[in-house]
C-alpha cells in the first residue's frame, strides 16, 4: 500500500506540506506546558525551559554587551 492510499486527501496534503522557519514564542511555552502530560520528550521542553526567539536575541545581545564591558 502506498502512502498516498493511506487516508483522505487532506492527510496526504498535510504530509507534503513545506516547513516554514519555526517561530518559538511565549505561546509555544504555554502550549508545551499545557500538553506536557501527554509529552514523552525532553523534561526541559515540557517544563518550558527553553528560549523563545525574542528571549534568545535578548540573551545573545546581553552576553555580547557584558563580554565587551568586562
Amino acid at each position, binding site marked *: 500500500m*502506498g*502512502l*498516498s492510499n493511506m487516508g483522505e486527501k487532506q492527510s496526504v496534503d498535510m*504530509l*507534503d506540506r*513545506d*516547513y516554514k*522557519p*519555526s517561530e*518559538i514564542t511565549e505561546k509555544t511555552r504555554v502550549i508545551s506546558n499545557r500538553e506536557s502530560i501527554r509529552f514523552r520528550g*525532553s523534561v*526541559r*521542553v515540557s517544563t518550558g*525551559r*527553553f*528560549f523563545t*526567539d525574542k*528571549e*534568545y536575541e535578548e*540573551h*545573545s545581545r546581553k*552576553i*555580547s554587551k*557584558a*563580554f*565587551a564591558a*568586562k
Partner: protein
Amino acid sequence: MCTNEMSKVPWVKIINLYHNLRKMIIRAEELGIKTDDFLQPVLEQRDAFDHFMRAKAVEIGLDEKEKKEKYIEQQYEKVIGHLYRAFFDAADWLGVTIKESILDIINPHSNECIKSVIPTYYTITKPRIIKISTEISDIRTRKDIGKSGNSLLDEVSQYYDIVNELLAFLDDVLSHNDALIEFSDKEQKEITEKDQKRNREKIINWIIAFLTGSIITIISLYLRSLWISN
C-alpha cells in the same frame, strides 16, 4: 532504488552538515546546562528528517509522485536547507554559550587579577573574541542556502573553525580558573590585612589624641591652680 539514483543524492553534503551540526549541539548542550535550551536547531533537524523520509518513501516505491526524480531531488535540497539553518543556529548558540562560560569564570575576579593570571586575556583573547563575533555575524549575513555545494561546505567549515577557536579560548581560560581563584583569595587577604592595619592605626590615633588632650587638660588645671594660689 538503483545505484544510479543513489549516486545523485548529495550524501557528502548532508553527512558533513549533519556531523558538524551534531558536534555543535552536543557542545552547546554540555556548556549551556544552566541556561535554557535553544530549540531552533532541533526543530530544523526534525524538518530535515521529514523531507528525508518523503524522498525515501518515493525512492523505494512506497509513495508515488508524478515527477519522481525531480521530487526526490527537491526533497534532498530541502534536507540540506534545513540542516544548513540548523547548523548556523547551533553554531550561534554555541558561540553565545562559550562567551557566557568565559564570563562566568572571569566575572568574579578583578581586572588586576585577570591581567596577572592570564596576561594575554586583554591583549589577545578578548579582542579576538570580539572580532570573532563580528566575523560570525558577517558569515550569517552572507548565508544563502541556494549556494553551490562547495561554497556552502566552505562556509560551514569556516564557521566550524571559528567556533573551535572560541572553544580553545574557553579551554585556556578554564585552565587558569584555579590560579584566578588563588590570586583573588590572596587579593582579598591583602585587602583584609590593609583594613585591619588601617583600623589599628585609627585606634592608636584616637588613643594619642585622648592622651594629648588629657595631658593638656592636666597641665592647664595645674597652671590654673598655681595662678589661683599666687
